């Protein structure tokens, strides 16, 4: 599924779930299940197995999990269109949406080396002051940054890295006649 279609799907699923007042728990449970047990996902997506048998298997799994009706419909719809594999990405988008609705901005922060707890807290404070929002930080290590950090959300990009400074200086040099 193309990312634009996935985003549209996330948008409409999120809206439907909100209307129904259902949490993301059931979808999250199945997301974890498929991640930990890819064979289950493979079986549910296997076109060689007759559709009614696959439907029955999914139905029993949903019954066992006690999935509410809207979440059921979403999972059944994904299974019928052979797109159950997008569930982890869909969940990530739905979680982001839920956070944004609560006024929390999810940010992926990349640093040059594994940060200490104090550094994480300092970066968090700095970004909160800069963006003036509650944040949920997700740290990752990228040595090519050389130093500093970059933070990225859907709508913001903060570059406080040495790599960024070097790039800026290089482009300044290139633009000089």
């Amino acid at each position, binding site marked *: 599924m*193309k*990312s*634009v279609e996935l*985003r*549209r799907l996330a*948008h409409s699923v999120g809206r439907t779930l909100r209307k129904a007042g259902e949490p993301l728990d059931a979808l999250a449970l199945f997301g974890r299940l498929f991640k930990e047990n890819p064979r289950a996902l493979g079986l549910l997506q296997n076109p060689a197995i007759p559709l009614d048998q696959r439907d029955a298997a999914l139905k029993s799994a949903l019954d066992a999990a006690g999935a509410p009706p809207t979440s059921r419909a979403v999972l059944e719809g994904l299974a019928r269109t052979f797109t159950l594999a997008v569930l982890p990405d869909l969940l990530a988008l739905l979680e982001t949406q839920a956070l944004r609705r609560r006024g929390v901005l999810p940010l992926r922060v990349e640093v040059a080396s594994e940060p200490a707890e104090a550094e994480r807290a300092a970066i968090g404070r700095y970004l909160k002051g*800069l*963006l003036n929002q509650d944040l949920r930080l997700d740290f990752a290590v990228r040595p090519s940054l050389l130093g*500093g950090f970059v933070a*990225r959300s*859907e*709508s*913001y*990009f*903060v*570059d*406080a890295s040495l790599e*960024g*400074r070097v790039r*800026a200086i290089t482009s300044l040099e290139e633009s000089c006649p």
Partner: protein
Amino acid sequence: MPIDAKHIAEQIESQLKGYESQVDLAEVGTVVSVGDGIAIVHGLEKVMAGEMVDFGGKIYGLALNLDEDSIGCVIMGEVHTIKEGQMVRRTKRIIQVPVGEALIGRVVDPLGMPLDGKGPVASKEFYPVERIAPGVVDRHPVNTPLQTGLKAIDSMIPIGRGQRELIIGDRQTGKTAIGIDTIINQKGKGVICVYVAIGQKQSTVAQVVKTLEEFGAMEHTIVVSATASEPAPLQYLAPYGGCAMAEWFMFNGRDALCVYDDLSKHAAAYREISLLLRRPPGREAYPGDVFYLHSRLLERASRLDPRLGGGSLTALPIIETQMGDVSAYIPTNVISITDGQIYLEGDLFYSGIRPAVNVGLSVSRVGGNAQIRAIRKLAGSLRLDLAQYRELAAFAQFGSDLDKSTLKQLARGERLVELLKQAQYVPQDVALQVFGIFAGTQGYLDGIRTPSVSHFERELHAYAGAERADLLMAIREKKEFDKDLESKLHEALKAFTERFLKDHPEAAVA
């Protein structure tokens, strides 16, 4: 001298005390799909409609569709370098173009980038391509003529500075030629011209530039080129960019002329963009706001009030019709927006009447106030004579038995039609036009054979320039076309006609 480590450390500390790490905070989005010159971008929550967005690598886009969870951008530049997942930055500004004197004589693209290999445009000022047109209180009535140098137009369909006059006709009927002639005729008259080529062949634009250079018209002209090979967004922007460049002169108290060649292709480029952005198609598949597309452009043409400098921007939009169909969507739109139209006909063109202006269907709604008195007085009888001629000529083809007065009127009409013919790139001074038209409407051509009319006119101009310069001056300067001037014209024409017939007896009607 021993090295003092403490001193050095202090120096470093004091130097770096004021250092603040520079942080680049940008509002960004992510390309989720790209194709056909359109990018769908997720993020960029606060982007404004019409804002320029930066794809990196000197590629910019224009945010046109603001949807709930994504925005639709048209890409200006190399589309194939943009990839899914690429970051897009807000620029927080509307597209701007360089403006000012530095652009005169240059050939630029719709964003003001040079195309003529004469180096960068040394311009310090920038104007946004989109701007709200001057309001009612900021405007002044159109009262100064903008002469095209074409007899048929200056006499019967006069254009004033600040007017919007449409040039409409089928392909190959001389629409561009009128625009180019008008630009050439502005030489030494203080009017800065902007020629905007939209969706044309590069060879055609090169030919236009060459012609303008040959006639020394590039000295007061800017050429904005968005050829057929450019992406649709650049073609869409071209007239707005050209208009912004011309507006600078208007807002600085000067007169400017903008020729949009042509708005049919501009509408087609906008249709392409709109369909790719999945906007609902309407009549002829154009989007619903195609009227606004042209009205907001042409409304920017105006004559400013003297308290605002009194500058003007005249617009000459060109529309190409298909098989003479003026009732198509875009022609009717632009006809209703403009202050008149010059209608060119293929039949007239191929029968040798050039410029092929259909004077019956052409009109200028405000230009009459701007005409000089002499030509305004003559235009009335010229129109009447031509109208009578057309009516009689239509009837005369069914019968041969015509009375004397009808034959006389037909002969007069034939000579007037011949008189209004004019070669390309030979604009005429208005005073010389008055001489010629006065001769035609007052019957001085009645005794000349029709094929000799152009010869008569050429010699008349030479005579007027050499021997009656006083009269030419009076025509240009006098506020009124009074009895005195009229009698002097009669006297001059009588003398000249006698001399011409004596020198060229073969030109006389048998």
